[in-house]
């Protein structure tokens, strides 16, 4: 039982990382119906951004919570702007072409960024060690050992996701996003600046990916240029399980994926990766639109 709760906490923490990443997939898909294969690379960029900010300005010090948060947010906005730039250069010209072309372009972007980062000398092919942002405190609740940082990561993620939900449901830009995801052409006729909405979507998506990158690297402190690929795949699956296009679905899917993965790998670690796909296939066969998704109907 103690083990179960401990694993559950680990699972929720990994799940919050997947959820943050999955939101980006789902938002981009919701608005431009594109699977952004390069989304995982935003996670990589974000964690490298944190790494460089810390090693340039705060080398060898323990950061206070406020500074840590500031560093994370700063790298999130840097990554956000990169995300907007990538969309403008590589995806925008493809908006009216078959969806698969923008997916191929995304594969190109992903190849480019990963290898570019590997090629430039101050990043290079060797893994980097991520700095400890916060001093971890271990404490006990009854017989269960818990880590403060893990709890903080889960809570922070939930706070961030709630803020995002508020932005989407209550603000003007959020309303424009929802309008654009229903019907891009109609909403542009209603005065929604679709370009601005798509840029905002990429900014938020890439920013959240960067945050999840920082959280991930805080736990598994090895940075490589390809770290985004596998994580990105799993987050994409999470988005699909929850129902792609639906933000609540992405969050739910993320947590499900995280918990399942931790639980399974505690039994047999080689299986963890494959099982998540088995879960995906089962869910798709039973409920093709995902847990919270709405079925797509073609009008004849």
């Amino acid at each position, binding site marked *: 039982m103690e083990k179960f709760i401990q694993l559950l906490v680990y699972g929720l923490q990994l799940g919050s990382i997947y959820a943050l990443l999955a939101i980006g997939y789902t938002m981009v898909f919701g608005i431009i119906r594109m*699977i952004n*294969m390069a989304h995982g690379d935003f996670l990589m960029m974000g964690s490298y951004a944190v790494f460089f900010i810390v090693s340039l300005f705060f080398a060898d010090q323990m950061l206070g919570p406020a500074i840590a948060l500031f560093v994370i947010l700063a790298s999130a906005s840097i990554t956000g702007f990169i995300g907007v730039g990538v969309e403008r250069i*590589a995806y925008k*010209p*493809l908006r009216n*072409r078959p*969806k*698969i*072309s923008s*997916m*191929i*372009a995304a*594969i*190109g*972007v*992903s*190849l*480019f*960024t*990963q*290898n*570019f980062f*590997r*090629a430039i000398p101050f990043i290079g*092919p060797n893994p980097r060690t991520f700095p400890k942002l916060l001093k971890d405190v271990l404490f006990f609740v009854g017989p269960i050992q818990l880590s403060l940082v893990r709890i903080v990561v889960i809570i922070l993620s939930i706070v961030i996701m709630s803020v995002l939900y508020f932005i989407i449901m209550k603000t003007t830009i959020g309303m424009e996003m929802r309008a654009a995801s229903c019907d891009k052409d109609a909403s542009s006729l209603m005065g929604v600046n679709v370009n601005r909405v798509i840029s905002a979507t990429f900014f938020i998506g890439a920013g959240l990916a960067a945050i999840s990158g920082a959280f991930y690297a805080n736990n598994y402190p090895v940075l490589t240029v390809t770290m985004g*690929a596998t994580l990105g*795949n799993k987050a994409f*699956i999470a988005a*699909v399980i929850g129902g792609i296009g639906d933000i609540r679905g992405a969050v739910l899917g993320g947590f499900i994926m995280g918990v399942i993965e931790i639980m399974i790998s505690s039994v*047999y670690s*080689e*299986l963890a*990766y*494959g*099982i998540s*796909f*088995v879960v*995906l*296939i089962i869910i*798709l*066969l039973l409920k*093709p639109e995902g847990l919270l998704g709405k079925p*797509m109907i*073609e009008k*004849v």
Partner: protein
Amino acid sequence: MNWLRKNSEVIILPLIYVVIFLLQKNKILNNYIIQIIMLAGVNIIMTLSLNLVNGMTGQNSIGHAGFMAVGAYVSALFSKIIFSAATMPPALQTVFFLLATIAGGIGAAIFGFLIGMPTLRLKGDYLAIVTLGFGEVIRSIIRITPTVGAARGLTGIPKLASLFWIFVFVTITIYVCRNYMDSAYGRGCLAIRDNEVAADTMGINTSKYKVQAFVTSAFIAGIAGSMYAHTLRYLHPDVFSYTKSTDFLVYLYAGGVGSISGSILGAFVLTALPEILRFMNEWRLVIYGGLLVVIILFRPVGMFGGKEFAFLKLKTGGIRHIGFSNLFQRKSKKTAVANEEISQ
């Protein structure tokens, strides 16, 4: 003579082989280059296989390396573990190589059927997601199966594939794909790609046509897997990851989706390109990725522009043919005009 002009492939294809063969014999092409040419052949087969699903039927498979993995492992299991073909006399080896290849194809086709049946009925991107998942599930299963070497990989597969056999299988695949596209079956698939609802009301059993194309494609991918296994002699589950699948997608879309010639050229050029760029060291994949984005942005129909080689004699789709016989004809017209001018 007229027949030869119409059927120039009868000369051209063996000629290409003989040229490569002679270059190899005279040590102008070293083993490394020959190996790359063989891998390019494998990639051509894979890209043609993907073209049947993504190009001809308009369904998106993004995990095709999974079928290649099934083909590679099944055929290696056949030739190495069940029959240990390495110790056989050469003639028997060839027979077992062909049997292993067919076994690999059938294995992949069975998986293709199991995946295609439930998912191809659904509309939308489900096939894409499920094929992606399938590829990764297969990889995980291989990783925990000790018989095929688990996560360490499978070594010591007999080297049975040769330049000749790869050339033969590439040629067969090209003609199978051509025949498929230029038939009622292929036209049914093209109709589904263009408008599924209309295809359905034109009497086309859409699920059946889609599953047929998908299973055929998986079979061909399995063949490619066997070629791969018996060329490199070593298999590792991580080779057939999702990245491998995206490689084939890239070859297909950069070459020109839906076009047989585009698939061939895309696979060949993009297999060769990273090797040609090798002198740029770590920058080569940066350039490769950048080029890919540029091709997609500025050549929507692919490098080859949706044209087809004349020797394929494709009739479906109103294609512009380019090829050797066309070149001859154009030249002869020009000379005819020139002759007239002189006589005047």
